[in-house]
């Protein structure tokens, strides 16, 4: 090995691999110049190292505040529920956008067809129900008329019978009176004798 101050420094600073260290040590044992150079370097290193680290005036400690709070994306990324919710929101938004933007040719025709069908069904149902309702209303009206007619007929017959019986009674009374008057005219003596009490 040739004399090399830089290699000595690397050796001193612990930057040489093991085999190279052995080479340097062997060289220093036989080279007075390098031995003295290494000794001066060791002295400088030792003196420097004798200057200890100083203590800190104050310890450093941080508290959680807005500066230290993680950003919204960090909180989102580090929270499974939040991330899941966000994913669901994104998916819902994507579906909504897709639904709003994609062409929908079949939907209007289907709607028109459905409206026509509904109208036809309503019309058929109306056509089916109206005659039945009219027939039912007519039947009910006829029934009410028949009942009223029967009631009126019955009342008339009752009144007629009453009047006929009254006439019969009146006629009988008039006939009886007439008969008595006729008898009085035909049989005056009988009538007078009958008017004298018997002895």
């Amino acid at each position, binding site marked *: 090995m040739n004399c090399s*101050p*830089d290699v000595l*420094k*690397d050796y001193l*600073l612990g*930057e040489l691999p093991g085999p190279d260290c052995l080479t340097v040590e062997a060289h220093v044992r036989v080279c007075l110049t390098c031995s003295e150079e290494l000794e*001066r*370097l060791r*002295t*400088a*290193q030792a*003196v*420097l*190292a*004798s*200057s200890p*680290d*100083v*203590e*800190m*005036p*104050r*310890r*450093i*400690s*941080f*508290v*959680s505040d807005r*500066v*230290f*709070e*993680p950003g919204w994306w*960090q*909180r989102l990324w*580090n929270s499974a529920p939040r991330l899941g919710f966000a994913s669901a929101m994104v998916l819902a938004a994507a579906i909504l956008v897709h639904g709003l933007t994609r062409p929908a040719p079949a939907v209007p025709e289907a709607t028109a067809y459905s409206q026509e069908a509904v109208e036809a069904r309503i019309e058929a149902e109306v056509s089916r129900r109206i005659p039945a309702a009219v027939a039912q209303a007519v039947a009910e009206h006829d029934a009410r008329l028949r009942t009223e007619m029967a009631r009126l007929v019955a009342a008339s017959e009752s009144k007629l019978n009453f009047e006929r019986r009254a006439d019969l009674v009146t006629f009988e009374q008039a006939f009886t009176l007439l008969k008595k008057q006729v008898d009085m005219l035909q049989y005056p003596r009988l009538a007078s004798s009958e008017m004298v009490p018997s002895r």
Partner: protein
Amino acid sequence: MIFREVEDRDLIHKARKGNVDAYNVLVSRWEKRVFNYIYRLVGHREDGLDVTQDVFLKAYQNLGKLEDPARFGPWLFRIAHNESYSLLRKNRPETELTEPPAPAHNPRMLPIEVSITIERAMARLSADQREAVVLKIYQGFKFEEMSEILSCPVSTVKSRLYTALDLLKDALAPVKARGVE
């Protein structure tokens, strides 16, 4: 070390989900190293503390950009490097490093004199060389990690460090010559 890396990775994972407590644990593990690195660069304790707080705040806000949690250390020190140099650029006129006074001539050096000598020696280095020394000698990073922190090739890292060591070995030689009490 592997266990520690796994734990750091777990803390980073929790902090990424907004767990501030986990991040505080992470801060407590790294704050002293980061503070001392910054302090050795800016040379002022309160400024060092302010920058350290900014570093950990920025690190939290950018944890999501850290691709490999196993590289958290170099990544954090890269932020510290940027924040420190941002402060140095802002306060350049006021924060020009002044050389500490030379220690009094005594047969043996007091520990404070050693510290001053080290400060003087470090002050003679360029900012890049000084940072390379701090990352290697005090923080123990590998060349590859230093390359990542400083955002420069490994060859550049080595060049800065080798030059710095050449300067330091001369500047610090008197310490050994006089010894330490």
